[in-house]
Structures are given as structure tokens and as C-alpha cells.
């Protein structure tokens, strides 16, 4: 428990009695640390929210940050740190908004004086520390979820499945192929095969910087899965160095068709499906 009923009563009196002054001074200290990256008005609003949340909670008796009665206070703190995290503020800049309250309280307690001044100040200070820690934690949580979201979006972005022809789809793989990506590619490709009813798929690895046994394993699994579903896969875009690596590593592609370029692969598939390709005479201008 951060503050007992008596202490929080005094805190409520202190914050309530000098509301205008506390928020003004608090805003002033925070403004200095943020170097003008947040407008004065918005900062003032945030500080007022926090102030009223702390004052209300203190007014209800003993403050315990994990108790149900402090729900409003926790919400206000989370709101602040979420906002800061999304706006790209650093952890220090976020927590200092809370720790600034210490300076304000120190001034107020000193002015009020009395026998309990030191004791009160230490208790208040502990409370502010706890609030700061909570803010920091929700800041980190928000940042982590942001990073996770971005990683997922990147994964989605990097694996398009395109339709090349009636009944032919292609997956241009770009970048390193790890297990997570390989899984996404596999699922996407197979789903597209079902959705479009395409019996042919071309896996183009032009954009894959290196093919090791693991990458080959992933590609082979995809091809076998597609075969199980009744579709045929062709691997294209094998660069000379990669062909050498594949042979050097002893990777066997078995009876899977491999082509040097996407164009070759498409021509191969079109021949299999019986589509005639004819070269047209270029039109001459009179």
C-alpha cells in the first residue's frame, strides 16, 4: 500500500487546496523537459486529468495502486503513456511527466511546514515513484505491441500471391526466408490455389539472397503440400550462384521443375496447359 488513509487525506487536501497552482507549476516543469514537442494546451489538459484522478483517488481514503478503487487513476496513467508512446516520446520524457509532481509536492509541503512535513513528503514521494513505475510499464507494453503489429504488417506485406494467367499463380519471394515467413507463404499460396482453383503455381526466388538447406526444406514442403492438394509447383528465378550452392549443399529438388527465369516458368506452364503462344509480325509503318 502506497499511502494510508491519513496520509492520502492530507494529500487530497494539499492537491485540492492548491489545484490551480499545482497544475500550473506541474505543467511548467514538464514543458521544460519536453522541449516544446507537445502544445501547452494539450499538456495542461493531460496534467489536469492526472491531477483530478490523483486528487479523487486520494479523497476516497487510502491509495493502493493495485486496488479496484484506483481504477480511474490507472486508466489516466495508461492513457498518458499510451499517447506518449504512439507520439514517439522516449521513456524518460514520459515518466518525467509523473516525477515532476514530486517537485511540486516538495514545494507545497515545505510551505505548509509542520512536524509531519518530512514524513509526509517521503510518503508522497513513494506514491509518485509507484505511479512513475506504472506509467513506465504501460509505456513499454504499448511500444511492444506497436512493434509486434509492425512485424505482422511487414509479414503480410512481403508475401503477395499474384495471378499470372488463367489457372497460374506466382509467389515472388523477396528477402530472407525464415520459418515464420515460410509458414505464411505456404498458407497464403495454398489458400490462393483453393480460392482461384489454379492447378499451377510458380515460386519465384529471384529476391531470396541465399538458399541454404533450411530454405530449400521450406520450399520443398510447400511444393509437396501443393501437390497433395492437386496443384503443381515450378521453382523459378534461380541465380547462377544459388544453383552452385544448391548443388554444393547436395539439395535434391527431385522431379520438381526448376526454371532460370519467371518467363521460362510461365512458358513451361502455358505449354503444359496447352495454350498456344505465337510471335506476331511487328507492324511496319508505311
Amino acid at each position, binding site marked *: 500500500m502506497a499511502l494510508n488513509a491519513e496520509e492520502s487525506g492530507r494529500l487530497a487536501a494539499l492537491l485540492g487546496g492548491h489545484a490551480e497552482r499545482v497544475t500550473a507549476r506541474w505543467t511548467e516543469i514538464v514543458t521544460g523537459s519536453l522541449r516544446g514537442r507537445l502544445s501547452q494546451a494539450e499538456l495542461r489538459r493531460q496534467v489536469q486529468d492526472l491531477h483530478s484522478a490523483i486528487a479523487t483517488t486520494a479523497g476516497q481514503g487510502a491509495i493502493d495502486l493495485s486496488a479496484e478503487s484506483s481504477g480511474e487513476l490507472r486508466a489516466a496513467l495508461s492513457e498518458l503513456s499510451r499517447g506518449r508512446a504512439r507520439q514517439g516520446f522516449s521513456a524518460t520524457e514520459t515518466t518525467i511527466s509523473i516525477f515532476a509532481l514530486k517537485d511540486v509536492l516538495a514545494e507545497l509541503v515545505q510551505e505548509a511546514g509542520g512536524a509531519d512535513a518530512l514524513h509526509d513528503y517521503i510518503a508522497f514521494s513513494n506514491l509518485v515513484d509507484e505511479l512513475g513505475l506504472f506509467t513506465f510499464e504501460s509505456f513499454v507494453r504499448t511500444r511492444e505491441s506497436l512493434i509486434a503489429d509492425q512485424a505482422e504488417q511487414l509479414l503480410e506485406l512481403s508475401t503477395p500471391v499474384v495471378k499470372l494467367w488463367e489457372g497460374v499463380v506466382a509467389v515472388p519471394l523477396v528477402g530472407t526466408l525464415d520459418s515464420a515467413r515460410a509458414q505464411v507463404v*505456404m*498458407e497464403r499460396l*495454398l*489458400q490462393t*490455389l*483453393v480460392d482461384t*482453383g*489454379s*492447378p499451377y503455381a510458380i515460386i519465384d526466388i529471384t529476391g531470396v539472397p541465399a538458399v541454404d538447406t533450411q530454405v530449400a526444406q521450406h520450399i520443398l*514442403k510447400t511444393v*509437396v*503440400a*501443393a*501437390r*497433395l*492438394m*492437386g*496443384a503443381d509447383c515450378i521453382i523459378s528465378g534461380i541465380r547462377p550462384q544459388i544453383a552452385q550452392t544448391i548443388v554444393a549443399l547436395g539439395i535434391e529438388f527431385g522431379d520438381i521443375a526448376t526454371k532460370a527465369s519467371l518467363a521460362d516458368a510461365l512458358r513451361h506452364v502455358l505449354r503444359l496447359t496447352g495454350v498456344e503462344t505465337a510471335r506476331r509480325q511487328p507492324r511496319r509503318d508505311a
Partner: protein
Amino acid sequence: MERVPILKIGDILLVSIQLDMSDQTAVQLQEDLAERIVATGCHGVIIDITALDIVDSFVGRMLSTIASISKVLDAETVVVGMRPAVAITLVELGLSLNGIRTALNVERGMELIAAARADELEYQLDDDPDAETATP
């Protein structure tokens, strides 16, 4: 006991598996199918597993057995409609359903059987020199 229905479409028997297979239903299906192939003289069997969420080694073996039985009775078996998740699981388990032909959907499966049948007939005609002279 539940039975898997076998539908005849032209020269093809269509088996759509809509329920979880048990030992009994599998054996019953094999018996029914063998009888129907002989009775109808069909040359193609399509097994639709679109509705199956899980294909384990048991179902895999059942499919292999059905394919082998049909082969003996001169009917081509095609498994159609396997879901992506099922295919991935099979690959991860290392089951490759050897000797079973697959197609994306029933339509493609029918095309596949028709193509295989056409190849076979052509081959027989080519093989038999009297065939052409007999029918001018």
C-alpha cells in the same frame, strides 16, 4: 451405422466424405465402393474431402487402400478438395499419400480422369493395328 453415399455421375463415382471416419465406416465404404465399381463399370472414382478438417494416418491409409482397390478394378482414383491446413499438416507429419492422384476441386478431378481415360483409349487404339482397318 452411418454410411458414406456414393453418387454416380456419367462414367465417374463421386464419394463425398462428410463425417468423421471410424474403422467401421471405412470398411463399409471400401466394400460399397468395390461393389458399385463392378456393378456400374465406372472407370473413375472421385473422393471429395472438402469437409474433412483432419486427415490423419488412418484416413490417409484408407484413401490409399481405396485407391489400390479401385486400381485393381480398373478405375482411376482422384482425391479432391484437400484444405490447405490439412495439406500442411500431412507434410509436417511426413505423410505423402503415395500413389494417390489429387486435384483442387471436383471439376478438375473430372477433367483429370477424362484426360487419363482419353490417353488410355488412344494408347489402346495405337497398340492395336486391326482397330483402324476394322473401322474405316
